[in-house]
């Protein structure tokens, strides 16, 4: 087994730590299928980490492991130095497709999360309203899910996730199905929300621009090696990334990395 090393000297407390994480799926013909091998990631409190990779590189599997959807894996995942086990509202996942409940209104969807968390009724109504307001959907609180556009759905999902005040937000290509203009507004809103809440976010995507625009660090994964190919720290302030030249260079480098199969 590889010895664990810090990728860079940690100036802050490590919040989420993955040590030698591996995952194999047992296949029917008894040949086991490796998806992840020796993944080591250190995430600091309040960071946005984007995980970039082509389909099949195991990036969603990694997110599922952190969320606790799957409990059998090799290595260790520590959140605040405690091993991650089972599903928990402190690690909330946001999916690519809307996982909102179609039998409830936007408001009721957010309230549902708080109801499960046993927040008293009058308090949770106030909170649900507040979170819908934060994502700019106050006017749509009584709409059923099918009446909302794709972007609005993901905003409600975000409101629902944030209302539970999770320690870490896991985002599995949440904007992949949206068109580019809506994506851009949502990037801005997500970054604004992050500024306010300083939530730690792990964001999985196959979109290079998205990864570079949002991440404090971009982790590039490759299916060939079942793991991390390279890691980029991006020091440019997020509100300047849209038209920064060096961003273009980073994008080019990452593109080269992603499509270089060696």
């Amino acid at each position, binding site marked *: 087994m590889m010895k664990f090393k810090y990728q860079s000297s940690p100036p802050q407390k490590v919040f989420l730590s993955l040590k030698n994480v591996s995952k194999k799926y047992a296949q029917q013909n008894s040949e086991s299928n490796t998806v992840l091998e020796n993944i080591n990631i250190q995430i600091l409190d309040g960071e946005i980490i984007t995980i970039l990779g082509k389909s099949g590189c195991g990036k969603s599997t990694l997110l599922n492991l952190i969320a606790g*959807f799957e409990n059998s894996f090799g290595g260790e995942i520590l959140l605040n130095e405690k091993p991650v086990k089972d599903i928990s509202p402190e690690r909330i996942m946001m999916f690519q497709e809307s996982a909102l409940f179609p039998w409830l209104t936007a408001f009721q969807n957010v309230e549902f999360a708080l109801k499960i968390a046993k927040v008293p009724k009058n308090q949770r109504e106030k909170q649900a309203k507040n979170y819908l307001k934060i994502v700019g959907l106050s006017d749509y609180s009584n709409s059923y899910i099918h009446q909302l556009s794709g972007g609005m759905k993901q905003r409600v999902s975000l409101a629902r996730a944030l209302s539970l005040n999770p320690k870490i937000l896991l985002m599995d290509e949440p904007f992949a199905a949206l068109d580019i203009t809506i994506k851009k507004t949502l990037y801005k809103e997500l970054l604004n929300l992050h500024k306010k809440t300083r939530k730690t976010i792990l964001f999985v995507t196959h979109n290079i621009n998205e990864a570079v625009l949002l991440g404090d660090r971009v982790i590039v994964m490759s299916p060939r090696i079942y793991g991390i190919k390279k890691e980029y720290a991006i020091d440019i302030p997020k509100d300047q990334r849209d038209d920064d030249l060096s961003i273009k260079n980073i994008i080019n480098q990452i593109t080269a990395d992603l499509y270089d199969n060696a």
Partner: protein
Amino acid sequence: METQIKSNSKKVSLSHKIVNKIINKDTLSLVIFIGVFLAVWQLVYMSEFFPKISLPSPLAVGQTIIELVLDFTLVKGTAFTLWRLFLGFLISLTLGLIIGLFMIKFQQFGKTMSSFAVGLQSFPSIAWIPFAILLIGFNDSGILFVVVMSCVFSVMLSTYSGLRNVPPIYIRAARNMGAKGFTLFRYVLIPAATPTLIMGMRQAWSFAWHALIGAEMLITTLVGLGYILSVGREFSNMSQIIATMIVIFTIGLIFDRVVFIKIEEKIRDRWGLDQQKID
């Protein structure tokens, strides 16, 4: 000029709406349909293709309906039939839901039971009647038995498949938010399965209705719409037979259109199941 055209078209659409409200298009076509049907019936009657005793005129049947209502034969028959229907449906619903839940809980049982239930679901309800007569006898319980056997499997199967086909992403999201056990079942699985459950209930209701009239005709208990039908046959009273058939038809229509369609529409609307995806 343009504004004039616009306001004109607005007026037209407004008056259109008012007309629509008074004479609903559906209602209108229904009235015409019934009118044509009665006219054809009257013509066949007048052509004397069938002897008058075998095919009475619409007017005679109308008179019979009024007579049978006034002497309470139809009122009493309808009341008893509906009571049996309600009771049988309630028993089937309870049993079907409970067994359906067991099928979800115990997978192997569910697998076996579901193929068994598919076979029994398409089993002709009338074929249960001799069995019911010998097992239970000529009484209300015998009729209820046939009704329950004819529709409990639809409830069972729709509970089973409705719950099994809940999109995993809903369950995942709910569990992620901390829902488990009964909370997950009550607030996620049940509402997510509701469209399938309602469809199953509607089918079960119609099976129960078929079975009930058949059972009432053959398991004689001296009361009920099916019994009035069989009495009509014994006395060769075609007027009474047609009058009862009309009542049976109307009850079926009312339940399907008013009760089930309304519930289904409400759910479909809320879920957006009728919407075509444009974006």
